[in-house]
């Protein structure tokens, strides 16, 4: 076991990556599921081990092929990566555990091995982005995760998934290509692809215009992938019409990893080398973040389809994450990282509850779930806890990140009051859209909805992963030491690159 220890960063990627072709070769869908879940649990174990290593020794490095960077590709796991690795591996594991129950209703048995292979590829792609320290390597793994995400979304029974995933494909590919253009421009001015090396060499570059253009392309490209307002238009439909466990996984991770790339690239490479870039970053992203929070929450209030309501809520939450980053302070970045972690837990739980609901309810509309809480108490209780976390009620994980966000806003002097107002209004709107669901489920008139005879509580096999997620919400709401520590270290790392 100890001989594997130095290889952990690359194993984080290789384990799910190599399991994918094995899953395709499996003749039986249950074998494919078992293989995928085992690989995911293994990835989670590696992520936990990496967190331990990062807390002890700082950044964990690895040279692939034993070629030193920048000639070879180097991997580097620091606090920022480790925190998100936990999110990705955790969401994947819980989603896979739930899929044993949830998937058969949506995907036929012959196609399930390919589904699980695509899931593993998505996990591998996201992990690859998080561990690498090379700009082009990020592009390659970004495309692995994107292509596999398109496959996962498109395979479900609802035909409306097809135009949704096509829009996601078109916008996502434009985003990835913009990122590629940006990397090309930076490469043109520095001659290297390694992020740390880029930062050093950019300092000696005299002509700044191509670098500015590069920063612009990279920011817009990643904003497309991260569904930052107003480039979010692909997200609501893609999340709504995907198979339910797919939404659990993607809503927890996918956009956050794009924001991770954006923040890492910007702070590590550009902030130190472009004058007044911190103003550019803030002035560009802060208004978009605020608009995202307000507009998306407003749409969520009027939305009746449960999954689309939560998808719009995700767009708003992405706004919170961007808002924290745009404050360019240790507290702001800590809040941003924390919210990536906590929102993943909250939204993951919410969508797991939806997956449970979907087993008994055919149409996931607010009107159709009237009174369903009487028949599915555990499912709805899980949803309630997730909703409380989304709102930011003390005792849940969501509260911690909102608290840090408010602290960061308080440091902003003149901007403090409007920022805090936006944060609180967003939370109030969250109360409204969560309450609408809860009200219908608990106090709705059962006669107006489906007949109660066919609705029964979700099976234990899917309730267990759902309630593990619920417990995580409460745990990290009451004992947030680990994510706070990692987030703060990440924020300090990022701010350390400021001029």
């Amino acid at each position: 076991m100890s001989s594997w220890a130095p290889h952990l960063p690359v194993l984080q990627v290789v384990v799910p990556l190599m399991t994918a072709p094995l899953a395709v070769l499996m003749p039986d869908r249950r074998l494919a599921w078992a293989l995928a879940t085992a690989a995911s649990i293994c990835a989670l174990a590696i992520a936990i081990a990496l967190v331990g290593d990062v807390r002890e020794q700082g950044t964990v490095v690895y040279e692939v092929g034993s070629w030193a960077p920048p000639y070879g590709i180097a991997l580097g796991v620091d606090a920022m990566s480790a925190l998100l690795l936990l999110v990705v591996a955790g969401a994947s594991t819980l989603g896979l555990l739930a899929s044993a129950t949830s998937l058969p209703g949506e995907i036929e048995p012959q196609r399930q091995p390919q589904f699980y292979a695509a899931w593993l590829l998505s996990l591998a792609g996201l992990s690859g982005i998080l561990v690498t320290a090379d700009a082009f390597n990020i592009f390659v793994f970004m495309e692995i995760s994107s292509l596999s995400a398109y496959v996962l979304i498109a395979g479900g029974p609802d035909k409306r998934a097809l135009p949704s995933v096509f829009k996601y494909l078109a916008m996502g590919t434009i985003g990835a290509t913009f990122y590629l253009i940006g990397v090309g421009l930076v490469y043109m001015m520095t001659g290297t692809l390694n992020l740390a090396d880029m930062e050093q060499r950019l300092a000696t570059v005299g002509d700044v215009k191509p670098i500015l253009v590069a920063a612009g392309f990279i920011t817009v490209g990643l904003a497309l992938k991260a569904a930052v307002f107003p480039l979010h238009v692909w997200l609501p439909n893609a999340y709504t019409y995907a198979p339910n466990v797919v939404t659990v996984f993607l809503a927890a991770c996918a956009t956050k990893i794009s924001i991770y790339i954006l923040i890492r690239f910007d702070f590590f490479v550009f902030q130190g080398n472009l004058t007044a870039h911190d103003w550019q970053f803030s002035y560009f992203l802060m208004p978009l973040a605020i608009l995202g929070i307000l507009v998306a929450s407003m749409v969520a209030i009027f939305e009746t389809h449960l999954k689309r309501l939560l998808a719009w809520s995700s767009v708003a939450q992405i706004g919170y994450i961007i808002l924290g980053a745009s404050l360019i302070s240790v507290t702001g970045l800590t809040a941003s990282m924390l919210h990536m972690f906590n929102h993943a837990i909250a939204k993951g739980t919410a969508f797991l509850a939806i997956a449970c609901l979907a087993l008994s309810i055919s149409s996931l509309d607010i009107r159709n779930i009237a009174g369903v809480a009487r028949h599915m108490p555990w499912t709805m209780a899980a949803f309630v806890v997730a909703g409380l976390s989304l709102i930011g009620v003390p005792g849940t994980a969501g509260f911690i990140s909102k608290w840090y966000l408010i602290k960061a806003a308080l440091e902003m002097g003149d901007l403090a009051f409007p920022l805090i107002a936006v944060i609180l209004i967003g939370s109030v709107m969250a109360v409204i859209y969560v309450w609408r669901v809860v009200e219908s489920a608990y106090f709705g008139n059962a006669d107006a909805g489906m007949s109660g005879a066919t609705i029964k509580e979700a099976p234990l096999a899917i309730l267990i992963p759902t309630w593990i997620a619920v417990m995580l919400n409460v745990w990290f709401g009451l004992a947030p030491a680990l994510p706070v520590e990692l987030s703060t270290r990440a924020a300090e790392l990022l701010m350390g690159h400021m001029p």
Partner: protein
Amino acid sequence: MEYLGLYNYWIAVVLLMTGFYAVVAKRNMVKKLIGLSLFQAAVFLMYITMGKVDGGTAPIYTAAGGEQIFSNPLPQVLILTAIVVGISTTALGLAIVVRTKEEYGTIEEDEIQQIDEHTSGGQQ
């Protein structure tokens, strides 16, 4: 040679925007995919143009030996990867288009939207 270099970049920029226009403004799904291919091809041209060295040749050691000036191998490696990624995306996109035709009977986006609004008006 200076103008040739600039001309390469200008054509790349115009191709980029042509492809982008096709993706954004056209309603036919296959046309959008073609636009995406054009868009990516422009980026390939940009990278390879930047790799060219005056008086250089392809970075392959030949029996000639001696002092050889080579063009930059790294952009070529990156674009090899990017081309493969591009065709993979296109293949997946085409599979989605074929499935869309089977489910909706059309591959024009405005018609698909109308069909969806029509059915969901009765459904939800």
